């Protein structure tokens, strides 16, 4: 899939490919021309990516080539021992977790499991978890608490799955329980939005001591399409809704909803998995170090205060 706003980049890239082929065929040396074009391409990418609308950033967050959890695991963690099932109903493939090691730090990794191919996405339900997924996540968090290892969650979902079975098995209760328990879990929790942070399905594993977002990820109370169809009465106003909802990492940093933005390489994560993973790794190590040294009581008090300040409206401060 090519993004509309990336067309100028694509054009230069095509020219580079052409020249390279031509130089092989005609045995003429175009090295300097190619270097020049590559420079221009890089500049073009920088320019385009520094002036994106919220709607364009959403397209990047949903880009089919954007790295997903299964790409990050081997790039960031030394090992991953997956744990399966919620012990009640089943094993949700849309939301996975298990023991992982980051450098020398043991931790519990939990994340939405989006796929990149059709087969993967069918198996993993496009990363849209059901109650059993959220309950598995909570079970794993309780293990982390017992084992005294920190929890890291990766968020990447359009939302919790809206289906008959999910409602019947208590999607609302599963998410509500996670929010309540995560406020009290006695080990550090770091949460990172890597792609799309969609509403209740995202926050269902998103309560923590530190909330991070990748530069071109988004986090939203409702999908811009859904918002537009309700407030604009037409889903085609989704780009306007995306802007109004303030879903980008810089906007949410300003609103103090998140603590830090993890930088993506120029041209976003799908152009360089390795560099993205390295930036995530560095940031996780930094915060794990900070949080590890805090006594449990202080950790929980700070977590409580973090949420207390979110939309902290004082009496007589309103309109």
């Amino acid at each position: 899939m090519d993004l509309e706003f990336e067309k100028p980049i694509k054009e230069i890239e095509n020219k580079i490919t052409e020249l390279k082929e031509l130089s092989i065929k005609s045995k003429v040396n175009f090295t300097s021309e190619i270097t020049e074009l590559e420079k221009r391409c890089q500049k073009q990418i920088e320019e385009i990516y520094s002036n994106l609308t919220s709607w364009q950033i959403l397209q990047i967050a949903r880009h089919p080539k954007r790295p997903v959890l299964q790409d990050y695991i081997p790039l960031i963690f030394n090992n991953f021992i997956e744990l399966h099932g919620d012990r009640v109903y089943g094993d949700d493939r849309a939301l996975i977790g298990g023991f992982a090691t980051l450098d020398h730090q043991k931790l519990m990794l939990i994340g939405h499991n989006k796929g990149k191919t059709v087969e993967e996405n069918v198996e993993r339900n496009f990363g849209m978890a059901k109650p059993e997924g959220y309950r598995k996540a909570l079970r794993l968090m309780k293990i982390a608490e017992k084992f005294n290892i920190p929890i890291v969650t990766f968020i990447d979902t359009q939302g919790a799955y809206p289906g008959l079975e999910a409602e019947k098995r208590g999607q609302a209760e599963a998410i509500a329980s996670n929010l309540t328990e995560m406020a009290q879990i006695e080990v550090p929790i770091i949460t990172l939005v890597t792609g799309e942070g969609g509403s209740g399905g995202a926050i269902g594993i998103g309560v923590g001591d530190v909330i991070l977002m990748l530069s071109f990820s988004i986090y939203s109370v409702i999908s811009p399409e859904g918002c537009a169809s309700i407030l604009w009465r037409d889903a085609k106003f989704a780009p306007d809704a995306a802007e109004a909802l303030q879903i980008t990492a810089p906007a949410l940093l300003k609103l103090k909803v998140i603590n830090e933005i993890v930088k993506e390489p120029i041209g976003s994560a799908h152009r360089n998995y390795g560099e993205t993973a390295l930036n995530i790794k560095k940031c996780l190590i930094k915060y794990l170090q900070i949080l590890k040294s805090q006594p449990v009581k202080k950790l929980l008090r700070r977590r409580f205060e973090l949420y207390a300040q979110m939309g902290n409206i004082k009496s007589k401060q309103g309109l």
Partner: protein
Amino acid sequence: MAWFKKTETENRISGELKLDIWTRCPSCESHIYKEEWHNNLNVCPKCNYHDRISCIQRLNLLVDKNTYVELNPDITPIDILHFKDGKGNYKDKIKETIRKTNLNESVITGYGQMNGKKVAIAIMDFRFLGGSLGSGTGQKIFMAANYAVEHHLPYIVISASGGARMQEGMLSLMQMAKTCAGIAQLKKKNLPYISILTDPTSGGVSASYAMIGDVNMAEPGALIAFAGRRVIEQTIKQKLPDNFQTAEYLREHGFIDMIINRKDMKKRICEILEFYQR
């Protein structure tokens, strides 16, 4: 997480009835004297349909006369995002809603007595922006939970909400976590928390404080849902059962302890609190 466009009451009032001493039950369509309808707490005397009521009506129904003290009454919504949609500014919408409803937020909170027993209480009102969960709503529910913890009181929350408030963006979503963090303190201190789900309780409210009561009570026929019916139908492309997402459906599937008629609600809450022996 939308709220619904118009309440049944509004539809009925704007609708076909010529004689305004009569009202028509939206469920069984019986014609009932308005006075009788109100005396019966907006419940149909013929079919037991529970129509929505205001937070003030609910307060009078549950809390002993002259014992209620309101907490944070001045908190109003703030338009932090300077939100504008196809129909106008959120800021204007807030002003208009405050004027129309005579309320400052979608919830009133405070403390008072129920049959002589002191409790902290939060009552939502669907008329205020569809009972949506905004920052002010979350703040009030959170502060009332803190009050309950500080004074060792049971906490009763009556929900009526279409879900998170879109016009406040992510700060609204974060209220789900914030309110649950408040309720978590009650659990830690072993203080009773009773959640009462009324029509409708959906989206971000059902997926946070409304669903985590020690006891979850609902009114008959109340819509209780996470995802909207239409979204689900579009996703799974099959017809849903008639009683899908009703209080009765949720009780059947294990998420509601009991369904209680409006007139019996106070008595039942008090009965349950008597079992609290700490």
